[in-house]
């Protein structure tokens, strides 16, 4: 299985990514030279203790933040060299985002929220409509199309958010703790759907999470420690339960995380 992944196309290639914060006198290096390659169709989980640099890595890879050093290629384009406007266009056309607190626009209906990312594109209304129907079907939120965010549950909101991330057929979807605000049932249902989307539509997903259960849906886990990659785990043909146990083990060695798990 590992062999097949390695032979497929690389979607994201990060080399020696470093990120520092703070002023000249008080520099704090959060990412200390990360090398990471993500192949098409992978579902990568990023885990690590608080302060390990998970969210920073995600932000940097997702073009929301800039690196201090190093290069990041997504589908062959070097995003570290792009200007702000180019980055925006890149995000809009190539990437999808799912956030912990959904980040839906309260003023828009579910459907309007989902269609937002393609609103500046030149997509025909008919095509957009088909695209919407297809995705809303997969995520099971078609009946909610005309509801406002305040009228639906957290799980439904996160599904809407996921649909919005997928509508522009992104090269890659970034998810930051997508299950962080959900109850366990909604969480596993959402993760099941993401896994489904990953397998059936071949969407590449990168997900930051604290939760070993959530990460057990991934095909690979990258563990961060103090700004470096500590280890990696591939799920391969293992069942989710077995994979989950393995993740727990690594987490145990890594330590620290159980303290701040909410």
């Amino acid at each position, binding site marked *: 299985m590992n062999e097949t992944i390695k032979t497929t196309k690389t979607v994201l290639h990060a080399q020696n990514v470093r990120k520092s914060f703070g002023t000249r006198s008080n520099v704090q290096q959060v990412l200390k030279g990360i090398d990471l390659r993500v192949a098409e169709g992978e579902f990568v989980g990023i885990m690590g203790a608080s302060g390990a640099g998970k969210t920073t890595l995600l932000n940097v890879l997702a073009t929301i933040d800039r690196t201090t050093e190093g290069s990041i290629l997504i589908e062959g384009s070097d995003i570290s060299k792009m200007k702000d406007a180019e980055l925006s266009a890149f995000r809009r056309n190539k990437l999808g985002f799912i956030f912990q607190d959904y980040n839906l*626009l309260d003023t828009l209906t579910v459907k309007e929220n989902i269609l937002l990312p393609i609103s500046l594109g030149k997509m025909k209304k008919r095509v957009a409509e088909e695209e919407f129907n297809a995705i809303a079907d997969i995520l099971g939120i078609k009946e909610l199309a005309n509801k406002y965010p305040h*009228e639906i549950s957290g799980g439904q909101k996160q599904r809407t958010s996921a649909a919005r991330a997928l509508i522009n057929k992104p090269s890659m979807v970034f998810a930051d703790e997508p299950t962080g605000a959900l109850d366990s049932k909604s969480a596993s249902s959402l993760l099941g759907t993401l896994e489904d989307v990953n397998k059936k539509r071949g969407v590449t997903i990168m997900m930051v999470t604290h939760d070993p259960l959530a990460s057990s849906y991934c095909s690979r886990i990258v563990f961060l420690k103090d700004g470096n990659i500590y280890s990696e785990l591939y799920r391969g043909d293992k069942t989710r339960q077995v994979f989950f146990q393995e993740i727990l083990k690594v987490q145990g060695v890594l330590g620290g995380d159980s303290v701040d798990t909410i």
Partner: protein
Amino acid sequence: MLTLFDLVVRSMRKNIKHYYLYFFALIFSVVLYFVFSTLEQDSAVLDRSGGSMGLAFKVAGILLILIAGIFVVYANAIFLKRRSREIGLYQLIGLSKNKVARLLIIENVLLSAGALIIGIGAGMLVSRLFLLLLMKLIGHEGFITVSFSLAAIIQTIIVFMVISTLTSIQMLFTVRRSTLLGLFNAEKKGEQPKKPRTFRSAVLALLGIGLIVFGYWLSGNMMNKWLLFNMLAVLASTILGTYLVFRVTISWLFYQIRSRKQGHLGLNNSLSLGSLMHRMKGNANSLTIITVLSAMTLTMLAGAYSLYYATEKVTRYVMPYDFMFDEDQQDEEWMERYGFNEVSVEEFEAGLKEKGIAYTTETIELLGVEGTYEKGVFPILIGKMEGIYNTYMVSAKQLQKAGFQVETPKSGTLLLHYAQWGSMLKDIKVPFEVNVTSIEPASAFTAVKYGAGDVVNASWGPQFVVNDADFEKYKSAMDQENMLNISEERVVRNVRVFNVADKGQLAIASGIRNQNRSEGSWSHGIDYYSMYEDSIKVNGLLIFIAGFLGLVFLISTGSILYFKQMTEAEQEKQSYATLRQLGFTVKDIMRGIIRKQVFVFGLPLLIGLLHSIFAIKSASFIFMSDITVPTAIAMGVYALIYLTFAFLTIGYYRKTVKAAL
């Protein structure tokens, strides 16, 4: 141990960003009120602007207090809402509601005191500027100083103590009534757009527009015996219509547009339409008030400016020549009888020569005539005029010789002139028949034109301008003593008119004319220059007061819109962050936001302008001259200042969007 006062100081320091908004609102109100009361208290101002204007100042002062009060209370309400989370936090950590209220009130008192000190200080600096402006407007030249007015300071302090008591009570109520949960959610509150009940909304939506249209129509057709009732109906209909437009029509329209999009809203509409619909209910009231206030202000400004702008022209309507002497009334006996003490024509001419003032002079004959007008030609407002009384016939040739610009009417036709009827006759239909019956046989004329101004100074009745042949014919017929019921002394009046060549010497000439006139006494022979001086004083003060109030209204309404939009921008910050993460640039987002601002600022301005145009139009009979130019100027200036608030708002949004990611 932290005392309550320490807490106040700390929270004020931390909140300075939120405070400055409210603080500036307060300072601004203090400055304007202080300037106004300084001018009001200054006796020199009152003397120079004509004593009777004291009342105008008083009324304007009361209006100013009202506006300042409403504005400060409104700003305070917005300010409190923005701080509701903080108020909630204080309660959460165990401060009692009373303590929280006391904290807020101490802050308020400190702020008000600060605003008073700064405001009065700034007011002292700028009051001189305003005084100079006022003096320029009323045509006073020369040096004057503003006297330091303790009374104005005390008056300002009292007014703002009352206002800050009001805001303190408002704070007390807000804290007392609030629940913790409500406080933490207050910032997020915004109604969700509901599906309007189609039929009812459609009916109300159309009713709103219908009411406004009806109001406009009625405003052009209210000149009958129901005038007062009509005026009230126009007001009620337009205001209610405006409210319905903002409350129902627009929501209904928006809903129609949105459902037609079937979810494909696009970024621009998401940021404008979506955001507007989200808050339409809450905004309907303030938008209505702002529209109505704008309309009022615009009408007031345009009206006052039109009067001021046309002062010279209107004075010329009544005083076409610089000076005029009624020769009949020059005799000693007559003057004694009526208690006048006038210079004679000879004395006046001698005076002019002595001062080296070049002039032209001419004698004009006025024939007193009577008769009837054709039925139903005069509008209802000046009465169903049918009889001709107190009317003079004048020869066009004599007028032309005297320097009056007038065409020569054809034989058997006449030009009707009368300044007092002013523009009430602007739309009178000519020709109509005029039957002059003061001699036998009666002769019929056709009135072919209405000229707004008088053809001689201070005419006490309408004037018929005819050609010289008709005039001479009529005059000789009158000499044959076959006229009916007209008193002898009114048959022929000779008047001498004077025009000074260099208008810069008018003041000196007027001095010669009025040298015997004692201060304050009314004189029959008032001249062009004196009348202009008097009018410019009244109109100058009027435009000053209107402009002052207008500025206060304008800045208040502009600030309220700005404050509201600031709050909205903060509420939607998260949305902007999300949009930027999704890959929309600041430019993309600003495009949608600008579209929203075009609506928020543009619509009240547009409707307000429309309202005021109709209001001015319906009141145009007050104005003798054409008011298009001054109205356009006044409205243009208003719109310009108003739009700066829109630009400020857009600037604030841009900052918010930029900082969002």
